[in-house]
């Protein structure tokens, strides 16, 4: 039921502006590839494993191959043509063998042409299609498990983070959290990972404030959650991060290991990891196509803006970013049901009427994106070492979640300002959620923002400011807006940032069967 009486025309205008603002960036994304997109493609085509003999530590085979291709013949035509051509030329059985041979210096990559190119392209397409079939099978398997075990009994889904740095401890904590009521488990990544230009291999035990995202860690956790899902009688979802320099690869690994949600924002890496904007937009488009295929819900990162900018002043930037994220997602093939658009309870709690303002913002998101499973993020910035105050604030955060029909509730921790969560923090936090949803979960029936009252006015104001900002962005360009610090006050020029050298303009003969199959939905 619409409570804010939003003007349909204004909403339509906002969407149209977002589409216009996104368009040049989409064109840019289509025109480029990146080392990460190429690696992701080869991963779909079946390459696995790492070079354990290298002096720099384990280097994934896929990095060896793509780096060497780039060295030998550039990536403008994509990696599959040189790779599958070499495979055939050297009569090798698998991409892994190709990688070994590459490492041994036995392979010289070239871009095939004519018939050879066609053949290499066909072989690549077959291999990639096989990878996509695994992704499809996983999607089917998820559907089956959900049908058998059931979804959580109610919305919002309860989303909990584990972050010990050690996948084995993570498993213990995740299973306990699921037993205590968590519907979604997110394994936070180690602080350094997003800037690694490769995906680490194997089970890992020494992350900082998070655990490395690796294919093996994904597998271990998904298996553990499958077990515990049976135990608790509902399908417990697994989340990780398709972000950083390896965004597309991680998206592929998520599809291959049946992850269910992925943090994936169109601008987060730019703003908060200082990753090159073009790199990010290219990687983002590919990764979202993969997510769409895998039926994975993406979670966007608008909450982060409110940790560096003020939640009242910057409220409209959240709305703008949500509209952009929506547009980019739609363009990449993601339907509304897979759009976990983010927003957060980050207004200074000392502000008069702060709770009502939170309601206004949360309701605005709800009514702008009625079919998206919005992700509602807890207070972090204004959490302090006063854990009692924090526990109370989290309770009111939970109440906003219930009153405004949020889809996914990231559970706030009373120790937010102190440490990564203790076992007991998670347990107390879940008790908090349980109390609020159980005692006041239906209060939304009695929540009717006064017409023309504080909440309604505030929502209209934010939407108005969002439209104004979108107009400016359409005029100046999204890349300029980002460079000027529009989002989260972070200024990121389009030519700076990490990973810029991994961006390659596509040549005319560029071939990427993954892109083709994904784009065509095959």
């Amino acid at each position, binding site marked *: 039921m619409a409570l804010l009486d939003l003007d349909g025309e204004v909403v339509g205008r906002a969407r149209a502006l977002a589409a216009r603002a996104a368009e040049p960036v989409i064109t840019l994304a289509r025109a480029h590839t990146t080392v990460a997109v190429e690696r992701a493609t080869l991963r779909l085509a079946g390459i696995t494993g790492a070079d354990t003999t290298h002096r720099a530590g384990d280097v994934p085979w896929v990095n060896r191959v793509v780096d060497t291709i780039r060295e030998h013949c550039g990536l403008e035509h994509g990696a599959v043509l040189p790779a599958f051509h070499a495979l055939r030329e050297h009569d090798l059985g698998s991409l892994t063998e190709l990688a070994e041979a590459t490492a041994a210096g036995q392979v010289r990559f070239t871009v095939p042409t004519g018939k050879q190119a066609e053949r290499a392209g066909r072989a690549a397409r077959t291999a990639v299609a096989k990878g996509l079939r695994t992704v499809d099978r996983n999607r089917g398997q998820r559907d089956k498990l959900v049908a058998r075990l059931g979804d959580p009994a109610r919305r919002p889904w309860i989303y909990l983070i584990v972050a010990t740095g050690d996948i084995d401890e993570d498993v213990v904590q995740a299973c306990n959290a699921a037993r205590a009521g968590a519907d979604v488990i997110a394994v936070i990544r180690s602080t350094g990972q997003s800037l690694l230009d490769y995906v680490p291999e194997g089970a890992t035990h020494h992350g900082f404030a998070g655990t490395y995202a690796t294919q093996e860690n994904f597998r271990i956790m998904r298996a553990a959650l499958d077990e515990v899902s049976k135990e608790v009688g509902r399908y417990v979802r697994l989340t990780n991060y398709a972000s950083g320099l390896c965004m597309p690869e991680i998206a592929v690994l998520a599809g291959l290991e049946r992850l269910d949600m992925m943090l994936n924002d169109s601008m987060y890496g730019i703003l908060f990891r200082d990753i090159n904007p073009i790199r990010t937009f290219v990687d983002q488009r590919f990764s979202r196509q993969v997510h769409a295929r895998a039926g994975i819900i993406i979670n966007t990162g608008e909450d982060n803006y409110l940790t560096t900018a003020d939640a009242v002043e910057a409220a409209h930037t959240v709305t703008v970013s949500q509209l952009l994220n929506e547009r980019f997602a739609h363009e990449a093939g993601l339907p509304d049901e897979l759009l976990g658009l983010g927003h957060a309870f980050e207004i200074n709690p000392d502000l008069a009427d702060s709770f009502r303002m939170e309601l206004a913002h949360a309701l605005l998101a709800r009514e702008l994106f009625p079919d998206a499973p919005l992700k509602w993020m807890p207070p972090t910035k204004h959490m302090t*070492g006063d854990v009692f105050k924090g526990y109370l604030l989290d309770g009111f955060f939970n109440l906003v979640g219930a009153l405004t029909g949020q889809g996914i509730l990231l559970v706030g921790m009373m120790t937010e300002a*102190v440490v*990564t969560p203790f076992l007991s923090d998670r347990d107390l936090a879940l008790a908090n959620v349980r109390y609020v949803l159980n005692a006041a979960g239906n209060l939304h029936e009695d929540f009717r923002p006064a017409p023309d009252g504080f909440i309604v006015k505030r929502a209209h104001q934010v939407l108005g400011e969002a439209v104004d900002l979108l107009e400016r962005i359409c005029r100046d360009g999204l890349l300029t807006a980002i460079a000027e610090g529009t989002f989260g006050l972070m200024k990121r020029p389009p030519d700076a940032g990490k990973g810029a050298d991994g961006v390659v303009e596509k040549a005319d003969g560029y071939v990427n069967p993954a892109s083709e199959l994904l784009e065509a939905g095959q």
Partner: protein
Amino acid sequence: MSQDKRYVRPYGDTTGDGMVQMSFTLPVPHGPRAEGAAQQLANKMGMDPAMVVHSHAIGADFTFVVVYGSVQHLVDLEQVRVVEREYPLLSPYEVNSELKESLGRKLVVVGACIGTDAHTVGIDAILNIKGFAGEKGLEYYRELKVINMGAQVSVPELVKRARTEKADAVLVSQVVTQRDAHILNTQEMSAAFREAMGDRRPTLVAGGPRFDPLMAGDLGVDRVFGRGTTPGEVASFLVHTVKKGVAA
């Protein structure tokens, strides 16, 4: 985890990390000195490292602090002293038949909330039919005769009534603990029974949320029940004392 796990430490997010949360107020004006004082106290308590993660002023003279840190002490599980239930937990049916067999008459129980304490909910939970936590109270047991004297009963009144009723057991409740009222009142009660009846005194039982079951000796009673006691536990204990008495 160790095979044997005799020694354990608090658990934050890793086995052995020893993490605890603590809060308190110091009578020191808010500022670095107050935080330093809090840190010192935490260190003296064996927290190392200890982080003062929050502090704020309460008026001009006091500072509230929150501390997180790792406690260096080990808990030795073998040294943990708990009052083990040395008797079986019986169903009402079993209680009744055991009593019928070993006593041949109804067991007389007198209950009261003594001193100026008027918190009857706890003792009523044990005595009234309605009971507690889904268990019926002692009044429900056919072989028990229950006299509930209610609240604010003086010790002389209680002794007198116990005598006239020929009580086998006297159950007293104490909820208010300020200035150790619960301890002093219970000791006064047990002394009065000793004085009045010597060895022939009834079984004495004390209960209340802030009692530690280990305190029975200090209080001069036969048993102490704490937080969350259920009627069945008490009834089973009464059967146990009867059988011990009969056997002795």
